[in-house]
């Protein structure tokens, strides 16, 4: 399977970005790296979608940004989860897990469902 072709489901990118930042502030480049490595190179976040998503989250108040120095001593914009962002992440994770479980159940089924009981 071509990893680069793994398309993000709608809304998935946001929750991944939020998740990426639970361990501390990150700049955009680090976020792509983190998601790529965390997914064993399965998920590649393109710059063209990453930055708009970051700015959107920032303007919604889920992230806040600050300029700082990167590990290679360059000026970089670091994003950090806000309290609101943390709450949002918890919500999204819950929803995502429920959704994934439901999809998995359907896809993993080996036989048609039993006829519904008519009471």
């Amino acid at each position, binding site marked *: 399977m071509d990893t680069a072709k793994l398309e993000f489901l709608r809304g998935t990118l946001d929750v991944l970005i939020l998740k990426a930042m639970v361990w501390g*502030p990150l700049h955009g480049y680090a976020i792509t790296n983190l998601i790529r490595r965390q997914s064993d190179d399965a998920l590649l976040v393109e*710059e063209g979608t990453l*930055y708009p998503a970051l700015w959107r989250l920032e303007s919604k108040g889920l992230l806040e940004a600050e*300029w*700082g120095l990167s590990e290679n001593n360059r000026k970089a914009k*670091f994003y950090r989860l806000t309290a609101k962002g943390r709450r949002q992440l918890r919500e999204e994770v819950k929803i995502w897990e429920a959704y994934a479980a439901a999809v998995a159940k359907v896809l993993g089924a080996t036989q048609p469902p039993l006829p519904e009981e008519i009471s």
Partner: protein
Amino acid sequence: MTPAPLWRRYDRLTGSDPATDVKDELHFHLESKVDDLIAKGWRLEDARKEAERQFGNVAALQQAGERMGESMERRRKFREYCAEWLQDVRYTLRTLRNNPGFAAIAILVLALGVGLNTAVFSVVNTMLLRPLPFPQSQQLVWFTGGKSFDAKTRAAGGLSGETYTVDVYREFQRNNHSFQSVTAFQTFYNSLQYKLTGVGEPRELDAVEVAGNFFPTLGVTPILGRNFSEEEMLKGGRPAALLTYSLWKTQFGSDPNVIGKTIDINTSPAAVNGAVTIVGVLPASFDFGAVFAPGKKVDLFVPAVMDFWKTWGNTLGVVGRLKAGVTVAQAQEEADRLFPNLKLQHKDWFYDYASDLTALKEHVAGKLQRSLVVLWSAVGLILLIVCVNLSNLQLSRAATRSKEFAVRRALGASRGRIIRQLLTESLILSFSGSVVGLIIAWAVVYYLSHQSSISLPLLNSIHLDTVALCWTFITAISVGILFGLAPALRISGTNIQIVIKDSAAGMATGRSHERFRSILVVSEIALACLLLVGAGLLLRSFLRVLDVDLGFNPSQAATMQTDLPPATNKDQLIQRANFLKSEIDRVGALPGVESVGISDMLPLDRNREWGLESVGRYHAKGADEGALVYLVTPGYLQAMGMHLIAGRDFSWQDTPDNQPVLIINQAAARREWPGEDPIGKLAYATGKVPVHVIGVVADVRESALEQNSSPEIYVPMTQVADVEGATLVVRSHMNPDNLAKSVVVTLRSLNPSQPANPFRPLQSLVDRSVSPRRFFALLVSIFATLGALLAALGIYGVISYSVTQKAQEIGVRMALGASSGRVQRDVLGRTLRLAITGMALGTMAASGAARLIASLLFATSPWDPIAYAAMATSLIAIALMSGYLPARRASRIQPMAALRSN
């Protein structure tokens, strides 16, 4: 993440820059990627190319980022602004709480200014600005006849000169092309008397006869039932009536099943008698009196049976509704052609009925326009004075707060920030004042709308509406900015260092403030002066009007509408005369009654016109021959307190069989028999038979106190049957209320169905006639008083403050030997200088403005010295009074204490 080094933190010092931020952020990303690729063994060139390839369209991303960054920036600024504003509000509330005296005075003064403004705006809005309460009311046009007569003749013609005959009305209706419909109502609504019987005590009803298309033309639909049918408009048709909302509510308890019920209505002389069917109820919003007859209360409407009225003279008031797209001017043009043409076809018409067509709105309110504008300006002046006053108060507070502001500025608050804070403060004050003002306005409007004794059109329909609320809102904002801006600019502009250093150097700013405040006070006095002159002139006019010799004596006399038996032939006329005589005799015999008489109409009320032409004299063709006519009984002249100059009064011997007689007024004598004694002369007045003039009475102001008398004729009710109602006039030194009962009882002993009509003092006619003038004079006087009081407050504030500031100086002077009297005189002198400067400016403005109100004045010159003198005296008195307290304080300054205190 490593925190940015200190210098990095300041590279956005000049403000945020979203574009650079985005560029930097994306640049960093590219560089990092290139680094990674190099680390994997790529060559620099290739690594850069690869990174850019992976990145895709940088420019587009950059643009999107800038857009988002900017909008975020805007939102952030807005949030900050709101936060600052909230901070200002909190701060203001805290300051005001610490200074409740100032807050209370400011809010009260503002409330008065804004409240009166809103109230007057409601009046102006209802009477001038808002359209009449009819759909597409701009299409409604009022017809005023007699265009071809000169102004004097027109005024003398009274109502008869402006109204139309049935024939003229019908012909115009048939032949015009400008109007969707033309309708009419019977203006002589008292010639038929309506009496409600069978529901409680017999009650007199005020009814108006209207044409069948009257309500459809106005666009008024009954809320219950229907309009008159064709059949009901015909002679002999089923009698029908439409109730007004108020009668339906009060007399019928809002009974929804009232339609189809009959009420007994006795009318005299003839038309309807007996059962009248209620066919509909009109909406509450329709108020006939408000539009067509200010102050008149109408209970019901009945059909004007045109076939009944067609033999009568000019009695119809005509209203038309223009076709869509036709202007009043176009309709006027058509009418100018049509009326003379119609006259050519109808030789029997009295004259050509050339008419002035005016928008109904203008007919209703046009005459009031100037008065209302004056009222509005007066209340605007009040508001200006309020603003100036508050500016002044703010400045005097600024003196004590200057250190606070200096410290804030020293700590980094920008000048704009301080101005904003001060404006927030003044806006909060003006809005709180406006809220209280709305309560005042509501009360004033409520009071005015319940004044039935003021005959102003639409007065009863004034109320506070959304437009008035918007007006208040706009006023509040502009007042807040107006009175806040000047002090804010001055306070924020003061030199920080000087203030902080305090000490004597601070006096420099004090002085400059003081000069500015003096200018404010001078302008305040000038405005008050303007108001006082205006009020003085209007009051003088009002008093002059009251001084007019009416030609009758309104005090100690009262009037009451009475029933009259119908009289269509000679026998009935004689019967009626006997009935009248016994009525008058019996009422006259009541204890305390001095004289009694009956007339069909009273002066200063409605009137009608017949002709008067002396016999045997040359009358130029087209010469004015109209005369207002009053049908009276013997004793009426005496009961009214009119002056019989020559000849005799009527007597009960002036029966239909004896020679027909007539009494005329001086104006009629001057016109018909100039330089001659009219007694015993013959004239055509009441019919084909010439009548003898037996008496001359002094002129009576019959249409308005301000208007000279027109020719009048008095006709004995014992000889002529054609009455327009009947009003009993009783002259007695007793209180009318005590007399009312015995008079009604006496009348009922002769006529059991006599309704218990109200017994009105004759004076009320005069009061009613002058009520609009009184209304305006009173309001403007109240405003002027208020303005003067506010000016006094301003003077007091400035002088008192300057005394405090100069305490030390005064102390030195007193130590050097100045007497306390001298100090007091100095302070008062300064007060007077301010007052006189203000008055000089005000007088100049007033003499300009007085010309504008000249048309509202009566027998008073716009340069009336008494009005100006009164203004000057009262302003100087006010100035001295408000300067006296600070002056006394100055004279009591202990030199030693003052010198030590600093």
